[in-house]
């Protein structure tokens, strides 16, 4: 548990030192949403100034870690190499460097340029905390079955609204909803539905090669069942 001013960029974004660029991207999105001005998650815990300081640290951390050169230089500095301070200064031209300096100054630390790497602390770093084996909410990865519920769950997990998919794919959002609700009879001909499914899967990050055939099999079976006079199979 370190004060914000002592946390390194990885700790600010809450990612391990060996995080992939995707991990950093994802962590940044979460942090951005978490510390946004109107974020519900801050309510009654962080007030405006704290949240502002956090936002600035998050932006700086991301601007350094998302650039390959910036991250390499920063890692070298963390590792104790003597690298000129300029090498790990925020890379993005419009990065809020002065604000960052202010946060550091507020913590009564020497200016960045002469700052030695933080002293090793006798308290364990946050990364050493045991991680929950239940990290993430994904548990369907292994299953080859794709039904409407799974599409919907994947979409919600990725934080995507139906309207966003509609805007990208130009598919009527009502049809997208029917896909999730498996209202097969309300959907158009199979050839169109396949196109919808492929576009939907791409948007939510599922490989269409994996998911489309499985969903379409459900679709065909559901329609066939109704033709025989039974209600569509629901699972």
């Amino acid at each position: 548990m370190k004060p914000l001013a002592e946390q390194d960029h990885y700790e600010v974004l809450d990612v391990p030192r060996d995080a992939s660029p995707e991990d950093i991207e994802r962590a940044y999105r979460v942090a951005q949403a978490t510390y946004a001005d109107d974020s519900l998650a801050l309510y009654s815990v962080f007030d405006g100034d704290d949240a502002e300081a956090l936002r600035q640290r998050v932006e700086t951390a991301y601007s350094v870690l998302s650039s390959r050169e910036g991250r390499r230089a920063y890692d070298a500095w963390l590792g104790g190499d003597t690298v000129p301070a300029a090498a790990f200064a925020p890379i993005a031209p419009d990065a809020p460097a002065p604000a960052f300096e202010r946060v550091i100054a507020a913590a009564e630390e020497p200016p960045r340029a002469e700052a030695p790497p933080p002293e090793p602390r006798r308290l364990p770093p946050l990364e050493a905390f045991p991680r929950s084996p239940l990290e993430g909410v994904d548990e369907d990865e292994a299953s080859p079955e794709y039904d409407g519920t799974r599409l919907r769950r994947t979409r919600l997990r990725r934080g995507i609204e139906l309207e966003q998919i509609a805007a990208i794919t130009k598919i009527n959002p009502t049809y997208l909803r029917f896909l999730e609700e498996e209202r097969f009879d309300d959907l158009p001909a199979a050839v169109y539905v396949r196109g919808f499914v492929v576009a939907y899967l791409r948007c939510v990050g599922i490989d269409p090669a994996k998911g489309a055939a499985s969903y379409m099999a459900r679709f065909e079976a559901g329609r066939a069942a109704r033709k025989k006079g039974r209600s569509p199979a629901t699972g």
Partner: protein
Amino acid sequence: MPVTESLRLPAPRPRPTLIVAGGGKGGVGKTFFVANVATCLARAGHSVIAVDADLEGANLHTCLGVASPRVSLADFVAHREEDLEKLVLETPIRGLRLVAGTQANLGAAQPSHFRRERLIHAVARLPADFVFVDLGAGMHPSLIDYFLAGDEGVVVMSPEPTSVENAYGFLRAAFYRRMRSALRGPEVRRLVAAAMDQRNERGIRTPLDLLREVEALSPEEGVRFVEAIRSFHPRFVVNGVRSAEDVKLGFAVRSVCKKYFGIDADYLGYVNHDDGVRRSIVARRPLVESQPDCDAAIYLARIARKLDAARRPAHAAGPPRPRA
């Protein structure tokens, strides 16, 4: 039977996994969560006992379809029954039993400190694989004690400012109480007690301020403090989710817990808003029983599987046999 076998002492009964659900605000779905997740685990072949510790507003029995319980936790609180096991009732759900919490005597609803200790002790020794405790609303120290006594403490919240505020309040209370019990010296313990008051004179605003003060008083106590933070893993559930934005709230709360308290809270999952929920409550049957295919039931089942998987390394010998 060989002699050696007959002489062997009976194996001590394995302790159940104790899952306690709280969360400060009323009406966010604690009872709903307990009724349904307990049902899921019972359906998966575990023996489960749900305890309604919400003595001032008990209705877990109603959610489980037990109309008017003949005995309840109130009998234990009022010293009418010393053996908690005798208060365990059957429910219509196979594998799931109940210690109801009807309000027998409103005046004497809250047990004394010693009674609470005995209750915690007795609950953690009920004969089952899982014991759930439904705490009810509020953040009275007695509720916090039950919460901290659990193997798993689950905070239930809904995506609304009122609920988020109370959930943090509950976590804050649990955090400070846990810290206080981890520390030894009377001086540092007084410090923690002072810090619980958000407007304390020493200007301790955050857990981090408190850690600084504790370290200043005694470095060894500071190490204990950090240890207590590291081993504190509350879980939380966001109930009544209506949009992707609401789902993200859980990740944001987890992030805030880390930044503010320094704790690794686990986002156990979310349950979406579903009209079926109301129908299930009216029908007095858990949603996962009456409408197992609806979205909310699927999310609840997922949460149950996670709790089941989290338990396995420490306890069980093998996967339970699913009920046919």
